[in-house]
């Protein structure tokens, strides 16, 4: 197991002022024939990454879609960047979503467009044409994910890992305030998964982006909770023993549509709940 940072004593979620909370779920519930999520309440402080864990079908992806307003909850309230998305009309949500980015499970790249057009999509919609400035921003975003050379390729010409990296570049090009990752390493080999996690850690530590990350891979979650991105060496490094570096990464575990655990990596490892112990084993 990777070295974990010490517990963060001053991590007082409920005491944070509203301006420092970018996302808040209050007793949110949704059902499709059967209840999927019930009484979900949590908040995402600015700059923090919350890792969502849970077995398949526990509602993790649904939670991301609810936060974007792609789906409406049956009950409860969701506030994102100070705006309550629960009762917003679709037209009103578009403006809010431009401050958010999402990396879909299967990348969801536009298959009839090149990598450049995919990454520039949001900018192209706003301006209508591919200007030199947009081209430069696309290259910068692709450089961030180390895929500059794929600019003229189509998604079908990329590997699964490369597609995820392009999806990250597309989500991050406008430097949104919140990033949502839906199983960004799902179905990838361990080496490629590490590359993706390094990019997410880089986004967290360099741009301080608040994010929700859904994953099935505990290894990825603990890597995020125990590593930081060193800008000088341009790579992800483990936090040294005894360091008090706050990685701003917490965990949230869903079980049967409810929150079973919320806390830091250290709290998670210390947790004696039988379900959590079994889940971690």
């Amino acid at each position, binding site marked *: 197991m990777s070295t974990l940072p010490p517990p963060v004593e001053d991590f007082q979620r409920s005491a944070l002022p509203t301006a420092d909370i970018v996302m808040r779920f209050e007793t949110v519930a949704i059902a499709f024939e059967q209840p999927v999520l019930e009484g979900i309440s949590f908040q995402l402080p600015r700059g923090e990454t919350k890792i969502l864990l849970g077995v398949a079908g526990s509602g993790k992806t649904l939670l991301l879609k609810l936060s*974007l307003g792609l789906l409406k909850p049956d009950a409860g309230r969701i506030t994102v960047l100070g705006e309550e998305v629960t009762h917003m009309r679709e037209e009103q949500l*578009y403006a809010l979503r431009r401050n958010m980015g999402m990396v879909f499970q299967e990348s*969801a790249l536009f298959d009839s467009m090149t990598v450049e057009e995919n990454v520039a999509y949001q900018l192209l919609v706003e301006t209508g044409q591919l200007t030199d400035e947009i081209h430069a921003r696309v290259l910068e975003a692709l450089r961030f994910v180390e895929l500059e050379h794929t600019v003229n390729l189509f998604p079908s010409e990329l590997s699964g890992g490369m597609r995820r990296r392009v999806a990250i570049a597309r989500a991050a090009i406008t430097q949104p305030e919140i990033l949502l990752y839906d199983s960004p390493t799902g179905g990838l080999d361990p080496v490629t998964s590490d590359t993706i996690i390094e990019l997410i850690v880089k986004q967290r530590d360099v741009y301080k982006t608040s994010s929700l990350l859904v994953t099935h891979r505990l290894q990825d979650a603990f890597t995020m909770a125990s590593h930081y991105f060193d800008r000088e060496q341009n790579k992800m490094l483990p936090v040294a023993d005894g360091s008090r570096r706050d990685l701003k990464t917490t965990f949230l575990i869903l079980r049967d549509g409810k929150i079973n655990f919320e806390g830091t990596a250290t709290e998670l490892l210390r947790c004696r709940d039988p379900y959590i112990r079994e889940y971690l084993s």
Partner: protein
Amino acid sequence: MPIFSPAEIAKDKIQAVQDYSLLVGRSISNIFGHPRYFADTMMQADSIGVGSLPIVMLAGFFTGAVLALQTSSTLQQFGSLSLTGKLVSLSMVRELGPVLTGLMVAGRNSSGIASELGSMKVTEQIDAMRAMGVDPTKKLVTPRVVASTIMLFFLSIISDLVGLAGGWVIATTLLGLNSNEYWTTAYQALRFGDVFMGLSKPVIFGFIIATVGCYYGISAKGGTQGVGRATTQAMVTASVLIVVSDLFITKLLMGFFAY
């Protein structure tokens, strides 16, 4: 437990009509709002209009030709073979031109639109678009509806002309009519009401083709099988709606122009 519930089926159908109506409403209201995707509209106009030109011309030409041939024996019995041009002209302009063009374009484009949007839906590309703050009805639906409506209008005019040319080929080569006689009767037969009827139908058919294709595409679910189902349903529904609406438009306009 019953195999199917009539109430559930009725609810599903009403829900589908409601969803379709909302999509139609949004596709129209988007025309008056911002942003307008002009480049997408032009691209769709090229795909729907220019792309459909060969099949529309072929269908129009041979329909006009066979119309002249089929009616010649009846007209000959009454000694009215010289009216071939008039008959072809009225049939093509009022009815066959718009309907055949509509059915041809429905077969080609309603299914094409449904499969394209359906594939985007099942691969989460439409959700990705929404997540990036882009309205799929503005970006995907309205350009197709505008392009289809405008292009079907022009395709019908071309189909009418090519159909008349098909009739002329038969009239002059097989029926022994002279060109002047054919074109004069064809031209003189047309009144304002005929032309109005022939040009208003394709506008409505074009609208049906695009909105039905978009509706089935956007509501596709169930992976590749779902996309295939949406494609077939779009083509069948658009074709049936064209034929059914043709009857009502014809009746309405016949009453309006006092035929």
